């Protein structure tokens, strides 16, 4: 039951990665306006350093971090600050953002530098440098990276796990990054593990990206610190707890952080950018986004300036006129947007566009649960989604958390994916969680 080298349960959706996994990363031009939300990360929003009407150069800090769990923002292009106001975001509510009007002839070169000699920096200085770069988990978590580099003192971290799984269908940005910039990735791993004080790093890569695994292995022959471990392709292999189990056999207990089993997990995209940015003291101003799906004519892996509106991405990737669904992120956990003026943020790894009737948009109506147990066999957290679903549909939310561990659900979507009755289980769970949160907030 406890198979080595992977986790239990999980699902095997079609991966659709061949659409873009052979396409090299290409730079996307500047949109006319960039929208940089002050909160693209988990934690406190950053504080603007610029005024409306002020000119900025590409790479210059335009907002500073506001406390420890917060990161600064940098200007993705040279231009003039047009406004600092509420703007739409992919998550729904409007958020305070800096609107940057890009100069027509703005250069793609980064004009801001604050060089460090990385070999001389102390661990504390590296953590500071990471915070100054505005880095967050680029895999989609958007949690400030420097916070993860300082685990609670009672936890002794001995291993860094590098997440190169990219288990979401369609997405290939991490795959291309590993193929094209392995040196930056390895540099990033060395610096961050030095700051963490760990001497062991494991790069976990799914076996549908063997070329990337081979490329890295070639550079790491005889390396005592970093090893590459190929893991079976299975969704959600890239989930933190699943990957730790797969590559190290350690299980993070419910409600605990990876550091409780001596592990810190970082995404390959995050470490690669750090490998590139840290020596220059530069900030995150662009990221690789996979644009794919049947709804675009020019799918690809694009290096996109942060703040680029989704509509501009759609234009560049030549969205078909009958495109009817735009997913931010991957198709398993991503969210659809209807407002196409929302910007690309640091945590956005992909955009999947569907057209016409493919995969919906009409979902077939939900039928009664027949207790087939598919969801129980799919849930990577070993919950009982069938029971949770029944409780949710009768609005019995409290027992869902107290008796059936709803809080351990990280909404990977495996249960909804397999349900033959088309019951939107994950959606039920999100509703249940928010109702429970609201009740707790209201003191009920």
């Amino acid at each position, binding site marked *: 039951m*406890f198979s080595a080298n992977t986790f*239990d349960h999980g699902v095997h*959706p*079609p991966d659709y990665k061949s659409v873009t996994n052979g396409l090299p990363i290409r730079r996307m031009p500047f949109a006319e306006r960039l929208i940089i939300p002050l909160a693209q990360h988990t934690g406190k929003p950053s504080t603007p350093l610029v005024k409306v009407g002020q000119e900025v150069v590409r790479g210059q800090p335009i907002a500073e971090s506001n406390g420890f769990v917060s990161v600064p923002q940098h200007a993705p292009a040279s231009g003039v600050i047009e406004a600092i106001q509420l703007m739409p975001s992919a998550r729904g509510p409007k958020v305070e953002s800096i609107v940057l009007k890009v100069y027509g002839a703005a250069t793609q070169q980064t004009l801001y530098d604050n060089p460090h000699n990385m070999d001389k920096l102390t661990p504390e200085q590296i953590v500071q440098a990471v915070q100054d770069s505005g880095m967050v988990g680029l895999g989609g978590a958007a949690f400030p990276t420097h916070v993860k580099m300082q685990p609670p003192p009672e936890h002794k971290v001995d291993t860094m796990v590098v997440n190169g799984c990219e288990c979401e*269908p369609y997405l290939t940005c991490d795959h291309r990054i590993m193929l094209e910039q392995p040196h930056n990735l390895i540099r990033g791993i060395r610096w961050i593990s030095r700051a963490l004080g760990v001497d062991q790093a494991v790069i976990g890569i799914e076996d549908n990206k063997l070329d990337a695994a081979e490329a890295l292995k070639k550079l790491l022959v005889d390396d005592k610190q970093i090893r590459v471990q190929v893991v079976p392709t299975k969704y959600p292999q890239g989930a933190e*707890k699943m990957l730790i189990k797969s590559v190290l056999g*350690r*299980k993070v*207990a*419910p409600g*605990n952080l990876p550091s409780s*089993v001596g592990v810190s997990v970082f995404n390959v995209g995050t470490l690669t950018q750090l490998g590139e940015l840290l020596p220059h003291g530069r900030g995150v101003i662009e990221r690789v986004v996979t644009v794919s799906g049947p709804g675009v004519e020019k799918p690809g892996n694009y290096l996109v300036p942060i703040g680029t509106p989704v*509509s501009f991405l*759609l*234009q560049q990737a030549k*969205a078909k006129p009958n*495109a*009817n*669904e*735009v*997913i931010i992120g991957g*198709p*398993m*956990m*991503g*969210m*659809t947007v*209807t407002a*196409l003026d929302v910007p690309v943020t640091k945590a956005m790894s992909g955009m999947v566009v*569907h057209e016409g009737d493919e*995969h919906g*948009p009409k*979902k*077939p109506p939900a*039928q*009664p*649960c*027949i*207790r*087939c*147990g*598919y969801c*129980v*066999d799919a849930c*990577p*957290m*070993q919950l*009982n989604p*069938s*029971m949770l679903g029944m409780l949710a549909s009768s609005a019995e939310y409290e027992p869902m958390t107290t008796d*059936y561990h709803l809080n*351990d659900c990280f909404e990977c*979507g495996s249960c*909804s*994916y*397999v349900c*033959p*009755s*088309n019951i939107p289980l994950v*959606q039920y769970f999100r509703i249940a969680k928010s109702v429970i949160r609201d009740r707790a907030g209201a003191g009920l």
Partner: protein
Amino acid sequence: MNIKTNLRSSPHLKQPVTVPQIMRNVVYALLPVCAFSIYAFGLSVLLLMLTTVLTCILTELLFCRLSNRPSTLSDWSIVITAILLALTLPPGFPLWMAAVAAFISVALGKSLFGGLGYNVMNPALVGRAFAQAAFPVAITTWSPPFLEGRFTEVIPSTLTPAFMQPIPIADWLAKTSTDAVSGATPLALQKFEQITTPVNEMLFGLTSGSAGETSALLILLGGIYLSVRKMMNWRIPVAVLVGAVVVAAPFWLMDSGRYPDPLFVLFSGGLMLGAVFMASDMVASPVTPKGIWIYGLFIGGLTTIIRLFGGLTEGVMYAILLGNVLSPIISSYTQPTVFGAGRKHE
């Protein structure tokens, strides 16, 4: 960009398997069993099946209309109920009684609970249990397979007029059957006369018995097909069979003259049909991995106990019905352990 997009909740991909597809595959898996049954028992079984299928469909339509639910015929589950019911009845079962049992199956076993997904017990067995209580003589009147002329004439009891007791078939049997086989089933022979029918005869369906329980081999093939397609949990039939053998073995070891050997237990009566196609009914079985084993072992063990010590020759029906009723409790006591909880550092 002039695109109108939709708002939906993730995940945006969906495995293509649907409930009607699962149910349809169960019907496919049952077809060889049906075909063999018709081949072995002739016209009577064909009529029996047509009667139950037709009655079940009409009952479902009636109840959907009464409760203002959309028709659920398209999910195929009603056809499974009808076929399974027919397969559990004696080949010469009077058609009017079969129609009553079929009505009870759908009405009491399913519709009153709220239809597919809400039934507590296997609907076919609810109908079968009703028939057992209401028509005790007819349901224990067996006729042997492979009678000559089975494709040209029906067993006389089949056409019993409505609300009448079945016409005795002993005289008819004596007339038709060249080698004067009795209609006694292997289970009855074993229990009352200590005659053990050879396993190979039961495997290939050469014995008397219910319409569908006779060929263990075809039932197993159907089960393997469904398991391979992941449309049935293979653990349930395996657990039922293991449970039956485990309980039967010690008694046989103590007194092999009186008690049947485990192989006989495995292949006689309705155990195979019950284990593969009825205990495995998704709706009425537990969902938790541990619960499934407990449920299966319980049904298997109880079947053997009823067979050995009860007044009836067969126990699989009551064992499954009891297992069905217990399955919510079994489920709630066997909740899976959350990832990372309990044992540390595995």
